[in-house]
């Protein structure tokens, strides 16, 4: 399965400044979103993981979108990511 991950609102700075990451799990058909987030923490993000993950979920202030809609509409952290899903992590902005 292939998953497309997009980062915005400055989160990309934690991930090698890359806004788009394509991940392939050749041995899986689906993966719990929680496992994907921990995979990202352990494999894509090298330092300061507390800026992304707190208590095994994304930290407060990050909005997660599953195929352009709020993850809360799909069960949040308990969603099972499927082949070709796009998961977007947005850090909310506060400046003006």
């Amino acid at each position, binding site marked *: 399965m292939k998953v497309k991950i997009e980062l915005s609102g*400055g989160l990309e700075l934690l991930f090698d400044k890359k806004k788009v990451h394509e991940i392939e799990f050749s041995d899986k058909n689906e993966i719990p979103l929680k496992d994907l987030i921990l995979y990202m923490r352990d494999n894509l993000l090298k330092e300061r993981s507390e*800026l992304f993950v707190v208590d095994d979920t994304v930290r*407060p*202030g990050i*909005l997660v979108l599953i195929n352009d*809609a709020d993850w809360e509409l799909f069960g949040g952290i308990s969603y099972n990511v499927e082949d070709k899903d796009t998961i977007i992590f947005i850090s909310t*902005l*506060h*400046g*003006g």
Partner: protein
Amino acid sequence: MEKYIKEHTLKPNEIERYGRQLITPDIGVSGQMSLCNSSVLIIGAGGLGCPVALYLSSAGIGTLGLVDYDTVEISNLHRQIGHRESSKGISKAVSLSKTISELNSLIKVNTYETTFTSETAMEIIKNYDIVVDASDNVATRYLVNDACVLTGKPLVSGSALKWEGQITCYNYNNGPCYRCIFPTPPPVETVTKCSDGGVLGPIVGVIGSLQALEVIKILTNNKEGVLSGRLLIYDGMSAVFRTVRIRGKQSGCNVCGDKPTVTQLIDYTQFCQSNYSESAGK
């Protein structure tokens, strides 16, 4: 649909000034009358507040309120187009008020040279129909949200940093509030300020203009188009906008839910572990 009504209260100088606006479909004479009879409070007279105030004043919003404690600095002028070099050192609320009065003397402007806090918020907000969050820090954003929920005012919220911006409307037409989406404040170390990360003028120009348009849509009762339950995300570098669906009003929300725990304003600097002012945090 254009709405024409025979009996209207627009004066000849208003017809002259707003003519090309009121002929726009879905505005019409009745829409223009709504704008002229409405009041909007803008929290922040900085990067976002400038275009919001300029476009709302020129559109003929009857009364604008401008809240800002800061004074104009030269370093603001690369993005805060409603101020002037000659306003250096004077209150941003007063400076912006002066500019918009020169643009449209038909409207009324109230300035509040104060920090929007739990103590000042309710007294100020009660006089307005809609609130625009053009502030620059987390604590003010939670404060403005709770004050809007407690007083039943729609909130048009914009934010910007570097090359990016975000905008949505909260507490509108039974939609979600800021706390429905973000129940817990972000850890302090994850918040980047414009003074640290930088921000480009056209980015706040885009987001502020979009905020002004949402206000106009709300006041002219173009409900379907309002960005409620949807968040617009803008990446200026790639020139890509994305409108995404966000959750609706949450029954468990601490302020707008069925059993709210926040029934009056709290201390938001404590709640967010940060100040009401970006510059105070430096």
